[in-house]
């Protein structure tokens, strides 16, 4: 085992049972573990709904800490499609040149900074900064807002010692309320103002709906992006030959990015609520009970991926579900992929190698499964090319 490895805790359960039950605040969840089953259930929104009580499809459940429905995440078709039609163009902006240029400027100066330091703690000294600053481009707000986002720490809903901290969430709600007020009196070109002016199916969005969209933009892209970036740095530090290969063979970078995202699967799983009695690979699913689509397990499915537990940088066929599948596929995927493209380009250009100094792993606990999702602390030293 190398320090940057992420073992697959689901293998035995996936092969032998395909589904595994875990408890969560007395509302158990049947985790669906095989790629084909995960895809089928994600596709079948009529039986496996996202439009339950707000917070219930999240594991651990957030029903006790919020009432605001997150949009489009907790809405089923056809209404879901109307929201996506509004939001998709905004979230595809990372494909534009000026968006990339802004991101490149941010990431380039961050790398220059960390090269000058003897060593850094990568989460607070790199990934959190990168994620927060990049988010200002996605939301089209001034870059100075990033300081506020950074002050919230790595998770906007969870404090360090309490996975469900209502007080923590309140901070975010207050910020959003204030920003919507500001946009009402002084409209700009940012996401708040854009949503205030927008219509879905001929109707203006309510304040509650705008909140539901913005909260998701903060929550969905926070620890996912932070883990994606941190884990990539850890991997490249631990595998100098891979950084060299990416530098020498720029044509494999696109594939390498998909492969890193498959391997890390920054979002472990996401829930659904059954609308009727159903079955997943011969396991009974009762109406009104929860399942979860375990992207992390599906992405190591040995019946689909050769050498599932290895990072094969130029993996050609890679049908991973790290960004979800079908209806609710990740709205932020273009932003996340663009971050990775710019990050890899800039590392190849500016960094010769990275020393892996020390790390404290972040292990999630899901029933019998212990899954490494990233790091609590990661100490690295960057060396200039």
């Amino acid at each position: 085992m190398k320090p940057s490895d992420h073992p697959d805790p689901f293998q035995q359960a996936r092969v032998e049972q395909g589904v595994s039950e875990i408890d969560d605040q007395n509302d158990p969840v049947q985790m669906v573990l095989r790629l084909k089953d995960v895809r089928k259930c994600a596709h079948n929104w009529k039986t496996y709904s996202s439009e339950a009580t707000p917070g219930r499809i999240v594991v651990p459940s957030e029903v006790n800490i919020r009432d605001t429905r997150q949009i489009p995440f907790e809405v089923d078709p056809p209404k879901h499609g109307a929201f996506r039609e509004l939001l998709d163009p905004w979230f595809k902006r990372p494909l534009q040149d000026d968006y990339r240029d802004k991101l490149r400027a941010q990431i380039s100066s961050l790398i220059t900074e960390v090269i000058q330091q003897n060593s850094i703690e990568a989460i607070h000294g790199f990934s959190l900064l990168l994620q927060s600053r990049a988010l200002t481009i996605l939301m089209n707000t001034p870059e100075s807002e990033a300081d506020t986002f950074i002050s919230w720490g790595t998770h906007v809903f969870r404090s360090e010692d309490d996975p469900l901290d209502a007080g923590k969430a309140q901070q975010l709600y207050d910020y959003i309320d204030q920003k919507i007020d500001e946009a009402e009196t002084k409209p700009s070109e940012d996401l708040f103002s854009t949503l205030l002016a927008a219509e879905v199916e001929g109707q203006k969005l309510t304040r509650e709906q705008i909140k539901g969209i913005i909260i998701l933009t903060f929550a969905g892209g926070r620890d996912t992006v932070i883990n994606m970036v941190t884990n990539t740095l850890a991997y490249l530090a631990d595998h100098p030959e891979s950084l060299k290969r990416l530098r020498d063979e720029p044509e494999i970078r696109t594939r390498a990015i998909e492969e890193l995202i498959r391997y890390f699967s920054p979002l472990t799983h996401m829930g659904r609520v059954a609308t009727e009695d159903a079955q997943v690979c011969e396991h009974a699913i009762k109406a009104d009970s929860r399942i979860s689509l375990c992207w992390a397990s599906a992405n190591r499915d040995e019946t689909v991926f050769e050498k599932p537990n290895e990072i094969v940088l130029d993996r050609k066929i890679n049908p991973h579900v790290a960004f979800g599948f079908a209806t609710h596929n990740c709205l932020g995927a273009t932003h996340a992929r663009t971050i990775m493209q710019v990050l890899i380009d800039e590392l190849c250009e500016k960094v010769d190698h990275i020393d892996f100094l020390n790390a404290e792993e972040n292990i999630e606990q899901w029933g019998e499964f212990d899954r490494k999702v990233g790091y609590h602390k990661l100490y690295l030293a960057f060396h200039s090319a």
Partner: protein
Amino acid sequence: MAKITFITKDDDTIVCEADSGSVMELAVQNGVKGIDGDCGGVCSCATCHVHVAPESVAQVGEAGEIEKDMLELDDEANERSRLCCQLEVSDDLDGIVLHVAH
């Protein structure tokens, strides 16, 4: 050099030429509406779905198993569906016609 014709949902016809790369890349470079290529061509996103014109089916050939599994859950899939990131441009594809599925 292969000449490849895309017909979009809005009935626009776009004729492109290339001698290497994937058919998805060719479509994206030429701004073919409905081909996004989100995953860059690794068979993960299904945003490169086309229906091969009946007269081009023999020339294009059949999808592999992993590609078929992806297509199975696409609401627009039919027996002539392909994910065009899995098609490598070569002289063998000269003259094919592809209808964009979305």
